[in-house]
Structure formats: C-alpha cells, structure tokens
C-alpha cells in the first residue's frame, strides 16, 4: 500500500541531487575581481589582451588569484579589495580608453560547477548595493521634434514644387498649412499626400483662410515613440560603458520608461551627470592631403580624431553641419545594388548647406563626428560621389546590415531623442546590502530552527520527516532561484522565509489526518495511506489560492515586490513537490516495507 515503484524513488533522488548541485555555488562566497571588457563591439577581448593584462599586473607586483578570458571580457580575481582597487587603477592606465575596467565580485565556486551552468543566486541591488534609476522619456518633446522636422520638409517640398503657401505651423499632433486659395490647396494636397504617408490630410476653411491640416497617424506616433526610447537606450548604453560598471542593466519598462541599474556604483552624483549629459554631432570635411600616423601633429586648421576601429582621421576644423540639422537616420538598402545603406534626413537649412558643401567637394571624404565630453569620435567618413540636394543623404559602401543599423542609431543617438527625467531613484550602500543579507539569512535560519524543534517535539518521527521535507523544499527553492537567475531581493528573502512557514502547512495537514485516521481505529499502514490521500486535495486547493495571490503580485508588482512574487510562486511549486512526494517517499521507505506495522510514532 505504502510503496513507491523504484523509478519514483530514483526520480525524487535525482531531483534532490540536482537541487543540491545548483544550490552549492551559493556557499562559496565571492571574491573581489576586476573585469576588463571592450568599450565597443568592434574590439574583441582576446588572448592578446589577456597577456597584456597579465604583464601589466605582473609589472605592478599584483598577483591575481586567477585571470581568465570569459565571453567577451577578462576577469581577474584578487585576494582582497585593496589589491583589487590597485589592480583596477593599473589596468585602467595601461589598457587605455578602449576598454571598460570595472570592479566586480566573482563567485568562488569551482570551475566544474560553473561548467554545469550552476551559478549563485543573482542578488538585487538592495542586497549587493548599487543605484537604480527609473527614467521617464518625455514623449511630448520627441513628438514635437518630429513634427518640427516634418513642417520643415513640407516647406521645402512646397517651395520645390512652386506651390505658394502662407504659413506652416504645428501644435500637438497637427500641422496646419495656410493657403490663399482653394486651387493651390488641392494641388498641395495631392502633392503632399504621396510624400507624407504618416499623416492624414484634410482641408478646412477657418475665417476665410484655406487650411490644410496634417494629423499624425497613431501608428506613426507609436513608431516615433518607440524609436525615441530605442535611441535613448542606445545613448545611455554608450554612456554607461564609460562609467565602468561590471554588469549594468539598461532596459525599457512600459512604453516610455527606462530602467538603469548600476550594481556597485555609489557615486550617484556622477552617474546622474553622465545620464543627463548632452552630446553633439558635427559634419566636417576630411583632410586627405596630409598623411598622418600615430604621434604626428595635426597641420594648421585641422584636428586628428579616431574612428570606431581606432584608425586616425585628419579632419578640418571648419564645421559644415551640426547634429541639430539631422532629422532622422535609418538603415536601409540601396535600390540599385541592394547594398546596405544609411539614409539621413536633413532639415531645410541643413539640406541647403549640405548641397553647397557636397557640390564643392565631390570625390572627397566627409566625416561625421560624435562629440561627448569634449572628446570627438568619427562615426563614419564616406566619399562624396556627387552633389546632393533635397536633404536626403545616403551613405553606402562595404557596410554590413548590422553596421548600418549601428551607424544609423549612433547618428540619431548623438543627442538624446527626447529629454529624460529621473522619476525614481534607489541607492543602497554596500554595507546596508550586506546587513540586509545577514538579517534575511538570520531570520530564515532562526525561524527554520524553531519550526523544526516544534515539529519534532509535536509529531516525533513524522515531525522529523516533515522537517527533512521542509529542508528539501528550501534546497529546491534556492536551486530553482539559482538556475533561473531570478533576482533575489530583500523582500525575496522574506518570501523564502514566508513560503517555508507556509509550506509546513501541507505536512501539518497530512500528519493531523494520519492521527485522526489512527484514532478512528484503522491500521497504521492504512492510516498513512488515507492521510496522504485525503490531505492531497486540500493541499492543492490551498496552494492554488496562494498561487493566485503570487501571480497577481508578479503581474502588478514592480522591482523588489516582483522579486517577492517570484519567490512566492516558485516556493509554492517546490513545497508541493517536497511536502507531498519527498515526505511520502521517506515514509514509504521507512514504514512501507514493514508488513506488520503495529505502531507509528506520530505523537
């Protein structure tokens, strides 16, 4: 009656062993480390960099415990934080500006565990310390910017087509164009309709004026908003790289918000400076007449910049255009030879200036430079093939689709697409984080011990079985959290404690049921069987109501509360497994084989 087939025992054992393996990495602790990763995608961390870092550290008499190449970064572990900080300074000065050198904490768990993908739990900012920002993108100004650009384009188009207009204004999502008579208006309408597909055109007469109203379509509005957020995300990513943070999180949240999490960062003032900084783009001509190499001095009237691959480019000081004149930059394909391209849209003034400059400089190279913090970098330097008018510029030539996408984003990302505001900030110091871990751990430990003592005193051997099942529950929950790399927050730790406190319910139900059946005079074997069978439906029911609460919290919670909800939901699943299957397996192993069981110790 109370016997499991062998496969069931083996399955439970396998789950527990897996749980143990995935829980293990959490016990090894972390050692201070320095992480070196390339600032740009074009540079790769390789063995050469590893040797460079090794020799740099050796010459400074700093011996790392281990130094390895992992993914696209080099990670060096140190015995203490003092050496770590010294090593960071050495590497930062030795390796130059092309790499991010950041302090980090690395798990001390052995390699074979890491190979199994067994990693310690991912700690949230309230446990490891760091800054959390929630930034709100001001969509109104993104839209206003887009409409401003379109208004300029409409003016240019009407002028080119020789259609007389009295004025172009924009307000909210509507551009209003004034005409003096109906005939020019309908001519303009048919002309504009084909070119501005993102707008809905309709005519109106107000106070004797002939108006044409262009309303931004909802789909186009959404596209503008999306690209504004994407652009801001990219800009932020580039800037945060510079901060030297080991594992920054930069994510979109909702329609118009961006979450930035910087673990380990304490200097919030500086972080805020960097997030809010504005960058500019400049278009200038390349000076190809003077050969340059590393160390050479720029001739009069020119400057030397690096491009994204680190090559030197000599550029004239005279500025043709600034980034404000660029409306848009999109990746695309040339319709003649299907080559990947970047199309740039310029506003009216920009188009005129560009036409002049390109007309004068056919066959020469033009550089687009991104300035941040007074430091310029050449994004692209294409050759001008012919005079370009109309404000639409196409850059092509030996670029992959990925490159065109990056270039387009960078051209747009010169500045933020729309201003952003910090709407939420949470900073936790490292000492508080460590305290939080200790408190969470201690309360779980003490609570667990109290429950264990009570259960054993109250239910004797069945109590002991329940405690082992509860321990299995904790093991599986921690293993699951480590496996999923879900973020563990302080409320999450509270969630672990709470689920353990609630999980014992299932065992209490079972034990009480067994006692009751025994009291009714059934044999012990039958009582055990009936106890588990009858309690099962109730356990499922009560866990499902808990699960409903957990899911609602997950859906509507944010930040740390989400962490709590994740733990609650996972804990309910593991507790069902351990309370029902693990404890039953143990009971079956102990009592199931005895054919004549006269007495069970259940208090």
């Amino acid at each position, binding site marked *: 009656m109370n016997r499991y087939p062998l496969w069931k025992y083996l399955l439970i054992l396998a789950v527990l062993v897996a749980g143990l393996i995935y829980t293990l990495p959490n016990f090894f602790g972390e050692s201070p480390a320095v992480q070196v990763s390339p600032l740009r995608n074009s540079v790769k961390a390789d063995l050469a960099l590893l040797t460079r870092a090794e020799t740099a550290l050796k010459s400074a008499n700093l011996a790392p415990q281990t130094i390895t190449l992992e993914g696209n970064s080099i990670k060096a572990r140190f015995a203490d934080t003092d050496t770590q900080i010294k090593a960071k300074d050495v590497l930062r000065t030795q390796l130059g500006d092309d790499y991010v050198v950041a302090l980090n904490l690395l798990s001390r768990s052995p390699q074979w565990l890491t190979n199994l993908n067994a990693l310690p739990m991912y700690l949230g900012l309230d446990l490891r310390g760091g800054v959390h920002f929630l930034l709100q993108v001001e969509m109104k100004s993104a839209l206003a910017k887009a409409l401003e650009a379109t208004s300029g384009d409409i003016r240019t188009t009407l002028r080119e087509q020789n259609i007389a207009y009295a004025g172009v204004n924009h307000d909210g999502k509507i551009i209003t164009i004034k005409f003096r008579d109906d005939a020019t208006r309908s001519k303009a309408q048919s002309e504009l309709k084909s070119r501005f597909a993102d707008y809905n055109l309709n005519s109106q007469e107000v106070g004797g004026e002939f108006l044409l109203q262009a309303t931004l379509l909802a789909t186009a509005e959404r596209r503008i908003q999306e690209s504004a957020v994407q652009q801001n995300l990219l800009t932020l990513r580039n800037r945060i790289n510079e901060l030297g943070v080991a594992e920054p999180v930069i994510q979109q949240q909702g329609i118009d918000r961006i979450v930035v999490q910087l673990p380990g960062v*304490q*200097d*919030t*003032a*500086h972080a*805020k400076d960097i997030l*809010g900084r504005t960058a500019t783009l400049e278009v200038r001509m390349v000076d190809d007449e003077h050969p340059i190499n590393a160390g050479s001095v720029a001739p009069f009237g020119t400057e030397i910049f690096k491009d994204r691959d680190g090559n030197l480019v000599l550029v004239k000081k005279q500025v043709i255009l600034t980034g404000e004149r660029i409306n848009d930059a999109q990746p695309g394909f040339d319709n003649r030879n299907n080559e990947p391209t970047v199309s740039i849209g310029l506003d009216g003034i920009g188009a005129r200036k560009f036409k002049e400059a390109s007309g004068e400089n056919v066959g020469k190279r033009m550089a687009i430079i991104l300035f941040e913090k*007074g430091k310029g970098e050449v994004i692209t330097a294409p050759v001008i093939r012919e005079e370009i008018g109309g404000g639409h510029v196409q850059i092509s030539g030996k670029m992959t689709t990925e490159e065109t996408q990056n270039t387009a984003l960078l051209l747009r990302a010169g500045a933020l697409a729309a201003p952003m*505001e910090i*709407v*939420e*900030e*949470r*900073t936790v*110091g490292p*000492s*508080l984080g460590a*305290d*939080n871990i200790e*408190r969470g751990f*201690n*309360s*779980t430990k*003490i*609570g667990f011990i*109290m*429950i264990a003592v009570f*259960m054993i*005193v*109250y239910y004797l051997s069945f109590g002991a079985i329940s405690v082992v099942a509860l321990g299995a529950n904790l093991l599986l929950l921690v293993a699951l959290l480590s496996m999923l790399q879900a973020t563990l927050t*302080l*409320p999450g730790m*509270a969630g672990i*404690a*709470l689920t353990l*406190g*609630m999980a*014992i*319910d299932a065992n*209490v139900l079972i034990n*009480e049921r067994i*006692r*009751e059946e025994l009291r009714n005079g059934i044999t012990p074997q039958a009582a055990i069987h009936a106890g588990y069978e009858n309690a099962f439906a109730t356990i499922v*029911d*009560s866990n499902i*109501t*808990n*699960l*409903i*609460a*957990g899911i*609602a*919290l997950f859906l*509507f*919670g*944010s930040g740390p*509360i989400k962490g*709590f*909800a994740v733990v609650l939901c996972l804990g309910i699943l593991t507790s069902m497994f351990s309370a029902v299957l693990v404890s039953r397996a143990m009971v079956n192993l102990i009592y199931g084989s005895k054919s004549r069981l006269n007495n069970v110790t259940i*208090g």
Partner: protein
Amino acid sequence: MELFKIKRDIPFMSYGRYTTAISLVTFLIAVAFLFTKGLNFGVDFTGGTVMEVHYAQTADLNKVREQLSGTGFPDAQVQNFGSSHDVLIQIPLKANKVGSKLSENVFINLCQSEAASSNGSFETTCPQVVRSYCEQRLKEPNIAKYDLGWKESYGLSFNCTTPLLKKDDEAKVTLRRVEFVGPQVGKDLVENGAMALLLVSIGIVGYLWIRFEWKFGLSAIIANLHDVVIILGFFAFFQWEFSLSVLAAVLAVLGYSVNESVVVFDRIRENFRKMRQAGTAEIIDNAITRTMSRTIITHGCTQMMVGAMLFLGGETLHYFAMALTIGILFSIYSSVLVASPLLMMFGVSREDFIKPEKVEAEEVLP
C-alpha cells in the same frame, strides 16, 4: 504530544450571532480609523525622498533637524531608524527645489556640519564623498571646471594627492540608502496595488466557485477582505508606514488566509457526504472542530517564521512582518468564525453537493 484533544464538537455555529457581531464591530472600528486617521503612506506612494544616514557616534536628531531646516527643508522628517546611530530623513516632494541632486546636497551638508562640530576634517568625516570626488577628478579632463563646481555648490575643495586610506566603515557619517520616487511613479504604484488586490479577489472567488460553489467563494472573500481592512485599520491607528512591501504582505495574507477557509470548506463538503443524518450547523461545527488543531499549528509555525522576521529582519522587514502577523492572527478568527456563519447565512445545504438525480434514485428504491 497533542494539544487539542477535543472529544465533542464545539458548537461554533450557535455562537454565530456573537462572532459576527464582534467582527462587524472590529471591522467598523478599522474603517473608522481608516477614514479619520488615514494611512501613513510611505514614499513609495506619495513620492519624495528618503535618506538613511549612519553616524559612527550616537546621532543628534535635533542637530540634523536644525541643519535641514537651515538649508531649506523645514518639512523634512527626521527620526531614528533601528538604532540610535541610524537616522532616517524623509523629505516630501514639494519641498524639493534642487531636483535630482537633492540627496547629494543634503548629505554633503550633514557631513560639513558633523565635521565642524567634531573638529574633524571633511576627509575623515565622509571619505565616501571625497573618494568619489577624487576618482572623478582623475578621469575628468576639465579639472578646473570640475573643481569650480564643487567650490560654488559647497565651498569645498580637496587634496587628492595624499592617499585616502580611510575606509567607509571608519567614516563618521555614511549614506546608507537613498530613495527618490517621483509623483508619477507613486500614482502608478497605487493603481497597480489596487489592480493587484482586485485581481487576487476575483481570482480567489472564481477559483472557489469552480472548486466548490459560489456561496463558498463569496463567504471566503468577504471574511478575508475583512482581514485586509483590519490590517489596514491597525496601520491607520498606529500610523505605521504603509510601504510597497506592506502592500505585498497584505496581498500574500489574502492568499494565505483563504487557505484556512479552503481547509474548513473541504471538510464541510466531505461531511455533507459522510454525515447523512446531521444538520448543516452540526456539519460545520464538526468540520471546524476537526480542523482546529491543524489551523492553530500551521498558523503557529508560519508565525514562528514571521516572528523571526519581525524581530531579526531589521527595520525594512519590520512592517512587512507586522502586517503578516496581524493578518495571520485575524485569519484564524475570520476563516472560522466569519466565513462559516456567512456560509450558513447564504444557505449552504447538502443539495449544493449531492446531485438531485441521486436523491430521486433513492426515492424509487423502497
């Protein structure tokens, strides 16, 4: 060991009138406190800035208050947080005139006043600030401009050439935590919290309806929302801070205490099938008496865990655990003494479980 050896069923249902009256009164008192005193919403919901500052010596709250009102924050609330060394400063949203740099400004001001009163240098008082300043100065190409900014804002300049040996834990003042929540975020959090509460309620009623019957779903949710209101009443009466984590605890309690009702309801259903001769009141009395031992033990165990959090979890988890404690205590009471009388009131009967066809078949037989 066995704590509950109850031979005869306790006639809970005959006390139904009194227990319902008691819970109605507690409920009304809780509602009254909610309306008169209101909840003391934390910064998560109202928006504003919270700073936790740690002093190496016992913190002088009055001096901190003076310092804050002197620098333009007369509305700031200053209180101890956990220990006499830790100070919690709350600055409401409308008082913030400096924008996102508020917390840095306030902290540097506190450092300055602490350095002045203890005759120490700024460097030894707040190495945190100085270290980040110096690190930045090394990176910043435009040093003069960077220095000037500091001089203008705080009248400070540091010598970065001497190595900064002081570690954070030797500092006299440390900034442990900053939370800033803008008005829009607070509004969203309130909305999301209400949505979560609604979803949990609907989910539970729906589930119990499918699993049992609508009468069960309705009486369980009334009983448990009554718990929620009482928890909120406690928070209103004592003016404890109602934060996001307290809200999470309230929702968790809702899911947890419905458990309790589910266990009793399960028994009631079972009894309707087994105890053919008994009346509804007897059946419910028996179900409650039989599950009482489990109820008390389970809640006791959960409360051990929650109690550990309440006393050892630190200030952050304190009110979270407090909400759970109140919730657990009242859910014992409400699921037994509120949900079951309600179930009676809704007129639960054997016919809710045993299909009429069966009854007809029985009638044909004799």
